[in-house]
């Protein structure tokens, strides 16, 4: 085996060791994540909390700002995805109606009418 071949094999083995260390042994840790990185069930519960809070304060702008923490998708899409997940996993009807109510309210939301938050 030529010297270059052995060198190449050493590089490959080293890279494999580096990848193993970087991905498995000591991967990058995200300890300061944003809500958009939450697992889908946590995201759904987050949306459910927004829906519950909305039933108390009826503040659609606040609900939209809270939903915006879950990503750059449209608030209606976030609510729809949560409702879809809730339907698939057979959430109780009361929770489903909350998702539904929030989704319907979001359809009426006009960002141009939103009062800036100081």
């Amino acid at each position, binding site marked *: 085996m030529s*010297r270059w071949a*052995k*060198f*190449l*094999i*050493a*590089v*490959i*083995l*080293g*890279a*494999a*060791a*580096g*990848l*193993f*260390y*970087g*991905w498995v042994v000591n*991967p*990058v840790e*995200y*300890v*300061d*994540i*944003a*809500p958009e*990185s*939450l*697992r*889908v069930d*946590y995201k759904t*519960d*987050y949306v*459910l*909390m*927004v829906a*519950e*809070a909305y*039933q*108390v*304060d009826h503040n659609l702008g606040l609900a939209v700002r*809270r939903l915006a*923490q879950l990503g750059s998708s449209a608030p209606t899409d976030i609510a729809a995805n949560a409702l879809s997940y809730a339907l698939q996993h057979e959430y109780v009807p009361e929770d489903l109606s909350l998702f539904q109510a929030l989704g319907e309210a979001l359809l009426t939301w006009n960002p141009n009418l939103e009062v800036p938050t100081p």
Partner: protein
Amino acid sequence: MKQERRGSWYLLTGAVLGIAMGLFYSWVISPVKYVDAPPYALRADFKEEYRALVAAAYLYRDDLVRAQDRLAQLKDDETAQRIAMQAQRALAEGRPVEEVKALGILAMALGQGVTPIASSIAPSQAKTFLPPTSAFTTTPLLIEPTASPSITLQTSSTPMITMDIPGSTSDFVATQTATPTPTPGAPFALQETRLVCNNDQPEPLIQVEILDAAGQPVPSVELVVTWDGGEDHFFTGLKPELGLGYADFVMTPPVVYSIHLADGGQAVNDLTAAECVSEDGSRYWGSWLLTFIQP
């Protein structure tokens, strides 16, 4: 001869180069992505928003178990205390009163470990938690009351809004400007003034409890305490574990104080530290508990 002296160092060089490439790829180019992260991995400020959201959602159904489950995902130590501290910070930072109320109500519910009777979306329907008088272990005996507090009507208000938490048991001291939200309605009237003797309370306090007409505690009420050559302001609700309508101020003997609500109403004058004696004859400072209620 020359080639043999070089040995196998090229293999080590190749391995090191490979490891460097592998780490660069796995840490920089394509790091592990946490797309299914749990709430406890949230950044601190997002955790605070999460707690506030749990509290806001709790007001809807009064489901303490659900709120506890949600908060458990954050893996906090002393959840109730953390929520109470967040309520204090929120109040000091001028966050919306609804958020402060929600956090305070949840902190109280967590502290008591009970689920209040379900109410229909009414954040103001909080339980009233007076200071823990049940912890008083000795028979109070007032001695040396230098003066009985007198009551006068005072209608002036003080526009200055600064926060100070004298005698706060927590390590948080609010120094920021806050925007209290006064409760509309009739001015509060003094319902009761009594000396409270508590061996566990080493400092003499002016304790204030503010209740609305329905008997519910009222947070964010500004109180003004004055004495010869000094004045201070404090707010109800900064110690939600003692009730949203509770506030206290540490007295310095033998200074004589007057206290009134910033929005006017009855003033209580001639308040000064008074001593109590326990059954074994030892003396300690008592606290004045003033209860204001909206008629």
